[in-house]
């Protein structure tokens, strides 16, 4: 929390996390706690623990806004606690520069027995504010929290919304270099949410840095330029906010409506079942990133229960569901390769991919030998990057007749995200 490169420090990262990992100790019985104590004191051996976060690499520069998304229990709060220094990492390191204002899981550690005012004083002391500074910003805090006479009542009488109002008001008054908030917007009412969003927008416009956890993709997309998706303690995707949130939403779509659970299907033993679907060799749920003109290679493995040859179909859709192209092995008059008694493999390659930059969903389906019935579905996402002002879905082969070729106009530099719009 000391030296911080400021005025010229545009590129100085405020937060640097390297191979960050956290494991919580497995302690259920008092005996485990005693043993853990002994091991910690004597530096003897590892405490048995459950990993909740693995290999997180992160760099947030001044002026950056990063959204953290992920399911419940994905490790978002743990990551925030590591960044704020509340938790000590098990592996790797965290470095944070500048004044940090953090609002973790509702409230800023308020003491329930003390009044709002007392708790403001406590937070101020914890953030290193002097008495004079506190006096100066107290009216601002009280006004921002806007909880009326409750400011002089014990915090235990507060509704959860009021706690967040007060917590946010304090953090806002601190004008931190880095603002870290965990699900703050979810609790406040409509008008307070608007107030917070407006405040954060101004804060970001003034060069503030934000790390925001939210389950509201709307808020994430509105306030953050980049996003990091945590899944089961690991980084599933990181990058432009729209790419990551779309991948995350697509993942949820698949989880809820699509094929319910792969293991259930396997147990049911349907006639033709997809056992593998890889995009350019990758089986991750996170979207594969390609450049326009790259080759797209889709590989599907199908288990055929009765040993009959399946037909394998592939389809490409725009993220909004518009079909772009679909083809099956039967249409092209090819037969998947038989890998073993039950397993058949098909691989299709689109050389010189004609898709324009954007996010696409790729599907694979096994069909019966006749190519009539469709059995199973797996989806993957791809992101096509590139700078172009062409619009539509794909580049169609074309030429200009009787036209003079001038120098290619210099495209205005664009970030991948804006070129998709």
């Amino acid at each position, binding site marked *: 929390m*000391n030296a911080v490169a400021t005025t010229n*420090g545009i590129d100085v990262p405020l937060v640097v996390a390297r191979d960050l990992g956290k494991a919580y100790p497995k302690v259920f019985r008092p005996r485990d706690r005693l043993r853990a104590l002994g091991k910690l004191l004597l530096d003897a051996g590892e405490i048995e623990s459950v990993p909740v976060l693995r290999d997180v690499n*992160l760099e947030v520069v*001044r002026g950056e806004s990063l959204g953290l998304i992920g399911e419940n229990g994905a490790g978002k709060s743990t990551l925030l606690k590591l960044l704020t220094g509340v938790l000590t990492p098990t592996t790797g390191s965290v470095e944070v520069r500048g004044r940090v204002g953090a609002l973790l899981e509702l409230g800023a550690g308020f003491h329930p027995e003390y009044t709002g005012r*007392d708790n403001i004083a*406590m937070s101020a*002391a914890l953030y*290193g504010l002097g008495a004079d500074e506190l006096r100066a910003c107290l009216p601002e805090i009280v006004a921002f929290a806007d909880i009326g006479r409750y400011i002089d009542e014990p915090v235990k009488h507060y509704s959860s919304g009021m706690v967040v109002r007060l917590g946010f008001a304090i953090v806002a008054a601190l004008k931190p270099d880095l603002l870290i908030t965990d699900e703050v917007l979810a609790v406040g009412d409509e008008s307070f949410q608007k107030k917070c969003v407006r405040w954060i927008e101004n804060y970001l416009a003034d060069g503030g840095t934000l790390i925001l956890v939210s389950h509201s993709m709307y808020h994430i997309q509105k306030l953050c330029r980049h996003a*990091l998706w945590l899944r089961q303690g690991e980084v599933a995707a990181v990058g432009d906010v729209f790419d990551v949130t779309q991948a995350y939403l697509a993942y949820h779509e698949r989880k809820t409506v699509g094929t319910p659970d792969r293991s259930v299907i396997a147990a049911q033993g349907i006639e033709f079942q997809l056992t593998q679907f890889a995009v350019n060799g990758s089986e991750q749920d996170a979207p594969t*990133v390609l450049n326009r003109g790259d080759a797209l290679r889709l590989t599907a493995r199908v288990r055929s229960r009765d040993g009959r040859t399946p037909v394998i179909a592939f389809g490409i859709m725009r993220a909004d569901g518009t079909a772009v192209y679909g083809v099956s092995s039967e249409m092209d008059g090819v037969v998947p390769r038989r890998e073993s008694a039950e397993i058949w493999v098909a691989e299709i390659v689109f050389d010189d991919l004609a898709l324009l930059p954007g996010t696409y969903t790729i599907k694979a389906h096994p069909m019966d030998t006749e190519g009539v019935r469709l059995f199973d579905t797996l989806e993957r996402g791809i992101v096509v990057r590139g700078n172009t002002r062409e619009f539509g879905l794909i580049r169609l082969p074309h030429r200009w007749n009787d036209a003079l070729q001038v120098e290619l106009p210099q495209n205005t530099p664009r970030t991948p995200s804006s070129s998709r719009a």
Partner: protein
Amino acid sequence: MTEPARCAASCKTSMKSTHATTDMARSSRTKTWAITTHFIRRELRSRYLGSLSGSVWALLQPLMQLAIYAFVWTYVFKMRLPGDDAAQTAIVPFLALGVWPWNAFSEAVMRSATAIQDNAGLVGKVAFPHGVLVVAASSASFLLHGVGFAVVLIVIELLGIPVRFVMLPLALLAFAMLYVLALGFGYLFAATQVFVRDLSQVLGQLLPLMMFTAPVLYSRDFLPERFRPWLDWNPFTFYPEYFRAKLLGIGSVEIGAQIVALCVALGVYALGRMVFRRLTARFEDFL
């Protein structure tokens, strides 16, 4: 996709950030001090001083306690100090110089022991040096009982029993040593309490034991000869004997015992700090 999320900075950055530098200049030491004083004030208020009559109560309470002790020891137990010439009332200051240091010490240790656990909500949400919670709990106890101690000394003097106020600086030094000892135990138990939850229960049982094996409510001379050296194993023994020797001129404490007591206080403090330092980073994992 897992490469660091190194993201382009916005060019709006340069506008802000001048205000930050002044904040950064504030050293972490002053910040820790500000936090500590805040928590001490909160501690004090949460005991008696919160209510309107609180500050009056803080002065009255030690006097009432002293009056009750005086009554019980003089009329019920009919205890008299060794030496036949001793006045019957001499037992009152004698007791006071045992009971007040003990109250400060035991309360400081008990309060410190649960300081981290009692503030689990805060420890889990804000990063700050956890030691301030222990320091606040101990300091508040010593401040409160220190004031009580002073009031009692003045009352004793007013009652006509001479107190050697010239020795007060030495007594204060010993009181400070006792504070260091209590702080050492406080650190040790506060850290351990996070892992071993029954510790505070056990302490509640052990502390009275410690009181009765130290000459708080009695004098070493009351014991049979062969038991007397045993008292020296109790780290608290030194304090009532020293206060009585210096302030009332009852008995004496050898220089060797003073050095030992100082070493014990510093040793316990060092041990407590070491254990606390070693465990503090893991508190949130176990709370």
